[in-house]
């Protein structure tokens, strides 16, 4: 291609902006203009390809879950689907592990919000000595690797009898969830004008009532986004669950790893388990996606 043919004149540039293709200043724009079909569908095609690229590991996992065990390593995508992988999960202990994951993640999310949201509110609204340092120290729990906390937790739980219990695991998850809640919710509370709460005080509300009736509803999208993140982090944890559970409180990620049998790996169970484990997070995220987007972008632009 010659240099001249690559040159885009001002009129073309303006046109491409009008057509909404302003960000693409490469030769692709010229080609698109020359090929009507590409102009009409180019962007959709690009987006579809990108989506396919992102989804390919998930799609691969899902097709594996339906493949017969004997065909697992066959390259062909043509096979007679089977539910054997899912059925064998239902017959084993996986269902219990799945419920354990659900219970632990829910408990941990609730605990984190109950403790973290008032803490974030206090750190935002109240001026006291060492406020910034407290917030920073809370963040340290996210900076240190989990192994740093595991051994102390392991020994303490042995002593307290909290090993292999759901409540014990939910408490451990506070180490990373609390930091998320406090730091995220601080941003959301900062976005709420303090004058609204002051108005509530004048109208007779106490501090707690102003928090409960004014500040909290106004940060609902942020609360939803924070809850989703807490849930996902808890749901996906493998390391703490690996060390601190035995039989009763095993969570789904650990249960899936247990399909790596000594004599061979149970691929259909691994894939079926992986597919099922993705499901609650997808449902949860879809349900609150409206709040999630609003919550995560809140405070991005200063008024």
């Amino acid at each position, binding site marked *: 291609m010659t240099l001249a043919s690559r040159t885009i004149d001002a009129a073309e540039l303006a046109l491409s902006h009008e057509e909404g293709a302003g960000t693409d200043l490469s030769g692709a724009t010229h080609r698109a203009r020359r090929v009507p079909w590409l102009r009409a569908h180019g962007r959709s095609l690009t987006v579809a390809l990108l989506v396919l690229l992102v989804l390919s590991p998930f799609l691969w996992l899902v097709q594996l879950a339906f493949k017969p065990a004997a065909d697992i390593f*066959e390259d062909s995508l043509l096979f007679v689907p089977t539910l054997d992988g899912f059925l064998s999960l239902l017959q084993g202990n996986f269902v219990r592990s799945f419920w354990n994951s659900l219970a632990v993640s829910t408990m941990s999310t609730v605990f984190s919000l109950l403790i973290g949201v008032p803490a974030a509110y206090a750190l935002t609204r109240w001026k006291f000595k060492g406020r910034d340092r407290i917030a920073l120290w809370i963040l340290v729990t996210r900076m240190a690797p989990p192994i740093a906390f595991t051994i102390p937790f392991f020994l303490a739980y042995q002593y307290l009898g909290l090993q292999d219990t759901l409540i014990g695991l939910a408490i451990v998850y506070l180490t990373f969830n609390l930091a998320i809640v406090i730091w995220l919710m601080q941003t959301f509370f900062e976005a709420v004008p303090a004058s609204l709460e002051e108005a509530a005080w004048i109208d007779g509300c106490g501090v707690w009532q102003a928090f409960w009736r004014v500040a909290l509803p106004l940060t609902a999208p942020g609360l939803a986004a924070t809850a989703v993140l807490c849930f996902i982090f808890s749901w996906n944890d493998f390391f703490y669950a690996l*060390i601190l559970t035995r039989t009763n409180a095993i969570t789904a990620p650990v249960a899936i790893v247990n*399909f790596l*049998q*000594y*004599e*061979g790996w149970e691929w259909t169970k691994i894939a079926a388990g992986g597919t099922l484990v993705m499901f609650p997070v997808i449902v949860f995220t879809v349900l609150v996606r409206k709040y999630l987007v609003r919550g995560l972008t809140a405070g991005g632009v200063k008024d």
Partner: protein
Amino acid sequence: MKPQNPLASLHRRDLLKTTAALGAASLLPGLAGAQGGAKKFAGVTLNVSTFSAAYPKLLQQWLPEFEALTGAKVNFDTPSFPVYNQRADLELSTRGSAYDVVNVTFIYSSRWINSGWLTPLDDYIRNANLTAPDFDINDFLPGARAPETGRDGKLYGIPWTAEALLTASSRFDLVEKAGLAFPDTTDDLVKVLRAVNRKERVAGFVADNHYGWTFVPYLHAFGGDVFRKAPDDLFPTLDTPEAIAAGEYYANLLKEFGPDGAVTYQPDQVTQALKLGRVNFTDAGQLHLAQLGDAATSKTVKTVRFGQVPKGPAGRFPGTAVHGLGIPTGSKNKEAAWAFIQWALSKQTTRRAVTAGYGSPARRSDIDSPEFRQKQVINGSDLAKLSLDAIESASKSGHMKYRTVSVYPQVDQQLNKAIELIASGQLSAKQAFQQAQANSIAELKRAGVKL
């Protein structure tokens, strides 16, 4: 749904319980007597943990019999191999009492035994009040008992599996077509691979990328070793001319005859590649290789052939792996734990497992039994004999002593890295093994080993 008669249900349950108890008692009359009669451990809860494998799975099925016989309740936990090792190592190191019976994992046995984390079993074995007369500890292969024995000469684990590293050819028909025999020496192997590599789109050779397990028989075969004289002298010997020659030979097998991404293959991928006939040769544990004889999942069941790992200039040194059941020092129910181990590894139970298809028993009487031998003949290869010969050879020469050295995992990592670096063309064999030597020395010093 049909309404159920509660009395009928009660009768059925009682009947099942009685049947189980009678069945167990008839299976293990010696154990019941040795334990001072039935239900001796009523009210005791035993926590047993092993990694998930065929034998523990059979035991889990038969647990109600042990519970009916002794009155003990058993929580039997079987996580995957890496999960189990991680948990057990942590639990034992804190001397916790969470477990009453554990699997004494081969690669950790020295660390766990020599740290005093496991209970010596000799006193239990000798005590006629606690051990059934027909338990017969000498029936377990000496080569299987050796890794479960401490430097004090005491036994810390009763083996439930004794496995050998063997060579397999999934498409031996291609070798026969080329007019060649099963390779006996390292030179033969290269000759055979050159003749069959890529024939009918079948790659010549692949191995599990845990080279600290699959490569070491070649290291020994070339006259090299991991340590100067394990377990007494742990100075690494990875930079010797023999070790470098072995590394070059082995990495070249992967480079010249391996499928794409050969250095990334995990044990299960190796098994699957051979089952599908995509790769012809490998060296792998017998439990993995036996799956090539499974007509339901293996496409090479009619063309597979097995043999010993090849002999090198210094001889033949097959790898072996043994796992046993032991009692942690922190257990609060040691007598009941010993009763469990006795039941789990009694002659009756192990024979029953062999009859059910279990493939790597540690009792000589099981290995010699017709039930086992019949099942282990796959397409004309006697896997049981190959395995037995390998285990006995390891027992005689003592070449597996390197494997139960507590700091071997550190050197193991260096061997994995060295073979990968050579096979991927990043370093020469000399450079890679000199680097492995230097890194191993540093790692061992960090671990407190005096060199």
